[in-house]
């Protein structure tokens, strides 16, 4: 069936809820309203308000309740309405969800998914455009996953729900309705922790994820030279092996993300590339990112957001070096 990402996520959720009665959804407006992006549309009618739970407006509470549910046998999928409000859950996620397995030596675990729309590029309200995936990625015990297409979203979300560890699932708002593709009706699994080669190539490796993938694809369409595009999919634990192996072949690397540059995910990816492929590198790793500023309000957003031109320039710098 042709689906956009919103539909694909909805399908993943309903499929898993059908299959496993321990899967429950909770969050602000996920029930009657079907979520502010309609991602959970119709699910309350199918699964009832006990399993599709409209919560009070309290993010830390949502995360804490989800952790408790997971400790007592459920597989909660909690939604935070926008990533910019997710800082409120960091105490629960870092101090509890991420380390429960370790601190009880595997006795108690927190198989939960924390879903949220993230990223800019849609000229949204203040605080609705954040991409702070590095906040989560740096926490041992958490997994951070970002889908780049409807099909990927379905497969990665199902894997996240079934994963025995807490997963932060970031949905690029910009990609929600950007594109439709064929998504199988039944089960479709994409393993966590494995990058995907979107396009093979020999001259430069471009690493990205989420809403960056289509931008990268367009940016290299008429490139002189052949680019290998890697969709990282899982930011942490990162499949650096795939990246490093590719760079060993191409000798050049460009990392693209929409988060600000400094202390962003690109730094870690670059560091791992250097550590793993230094002797094969023919150019420094290019980081194409947002600048180190607060996401501007809509009228200034273009001065912040990564675009095809910036990617192209980065790739050309890498090729030219």
């Amino acid at each position, binding site marked *: 069936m042709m689906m956009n990402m919103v539909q694909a996520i909805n399908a993943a959720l309903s499929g898993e809820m059908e299959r496993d009665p321990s899967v429950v959804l909770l969050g602000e407006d996920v029930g*009657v309203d079907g979520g502010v992006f309609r991602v959970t549309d119709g699910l309350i009618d199918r699964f009832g308000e006990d399993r599709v739970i409209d919560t009070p407006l309290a*993010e830390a509470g949502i995360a804490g309740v989800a952790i408790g549910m997971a400790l007592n046998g459920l597989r909660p999928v909690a939604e935070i309405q926008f990533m910019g409000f997710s800082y409120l859950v960091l105490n629960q996620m870092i101090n509890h969800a991420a380390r429960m397995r370790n601190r009880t030596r595997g006795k108690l675990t927190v198989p939960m998914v924390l879903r949220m729309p993230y990223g800019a590029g849609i000229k949204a309200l203040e605080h609705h455009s954040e991409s702070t995936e590095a906040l989560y990625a740096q926490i041992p015990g958490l997994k951070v996953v970002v889908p780049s297409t409807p099909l990927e979203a379905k497969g990665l979300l199902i894997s996240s729900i079934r994963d025995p560890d807490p997963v932060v699932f970031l949905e690029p708002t910009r990609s929600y309705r950007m594109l439709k593709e064929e998504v199988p009706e039944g089960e479709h699994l994409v393993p966590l922790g494995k990058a995907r080669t979107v396009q093979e190539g020999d001259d430069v490796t471009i690493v990205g994820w989420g809403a960056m993938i289509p931008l990268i694809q367009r940016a290299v369409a008429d490139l002189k030279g052949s680019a290998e595009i890697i969709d990282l999919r899982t930011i942490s634990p990162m499949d650096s092996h795939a990246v490093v192996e590719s760079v060993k072949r191409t000798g050049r690397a460009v990392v693209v993300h929409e988060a600000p540059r400094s202390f962003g995910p690109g730094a870690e990816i670059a560091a791992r590339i250097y550590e793993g492929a230094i002797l094969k590198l023919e150019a420094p790793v290019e980081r194409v990112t947002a600048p180190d*500023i607060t996401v501007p*309000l809509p009228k*200034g957003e273009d001065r912040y957001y990564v675009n095809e031109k910036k990617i192209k320039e980065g790739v050309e710098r890498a090729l030219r070096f």
Partner: protein
Amino acid sequence: MLTDEFDPQKGEMLRIVDEEGEADMGLMPRMSKDLLLKAYRTMLLTRLADDKAVKLQRQGRLGAYPPSKGQEASQVGPAMALKEEDWLVWAFREMGALLWKGVPLETQYLYWMGNELGNVYPEGTRVTPSVVPVGSQVPQAVGIAYAGLIRKEKSVVLAYFGDGATSEGDFHEGLNFAGVFRTPNVFVCQNNQFAISTRRSRQTASATIAQKAIAYGFPGILVDGNDIMAMYAATKEAAERARKGKGPTLIESFTYRMSDHTTSDDWRKYRSKEEVAEWERKDPLKRFSAYLVSKGFLKDEASLIEELGELVEKAAVQAEATPAPGLADVFEHTYAEMPPYLREQMGGGWK
């Protein structure tokens, strides 16, 4: 003390002018004709400016916008009790309060059009910028009030937030600090019955929001939020108490959001036409104008509407004429001084 007379735990609600415009003169605060007319004018301007904002959004000339419709009394009433040196701390749905306190309409439009200059208010206007992360402003308002105490000011800090905000930890922590420090805060919860699609009854099992004050050791009062007199009277009393060093008050304004949550929302998903129609009957503007007409204060509403309509148009034009931020604008306010690497980023690649 109104807070003694109206016990939220018994469900008692302060109302001075009823839905037909009939007033209980025993409770009526002293208000000059001028003050009344200015209040009505501000409420009406808010209604018109709100309509315009929604229209601009539909035309793609303004971003997502949270309408005020139905909450004009709830917004303007409390602000009327403020003096110039008092602070107004808002969330994101308080256009009327801002208009009263001196934030120009064109500035507000500018913000919703997505320009940071919309957060820059005229010199000396003691109004903080919008706070979108729900509830965050509550402890901030307490800090502002505490600073006022330390600096020996006599200013009061009025903070608005919604019914949804009362579920956030920040609401709790802020009110608890205010109770402990006895800061000069007035907390106005605009209970408009919804947080997006979530009904008030689903937000908390507390019978009223006003009674939450009991958890913090200061008074709470439930007020008809569609009655500007009641909102003004309750806030005035609370502000005086605060100014005298007797600590904070929580005011629950019982009102209704007559329009969508924001222009991205569709209220038909979660409430009935009948319910909305019922509240349209209770429209705060209708009630207030009925009262003013009955007093003989309001005569030529049509020409007032025309005058305000022109103001609105002018503000929209002015906001739209403001240029988008330049490259330096989005970079140079990150720190007081720009770090070298940021200057480099500004120079190269982000032109």
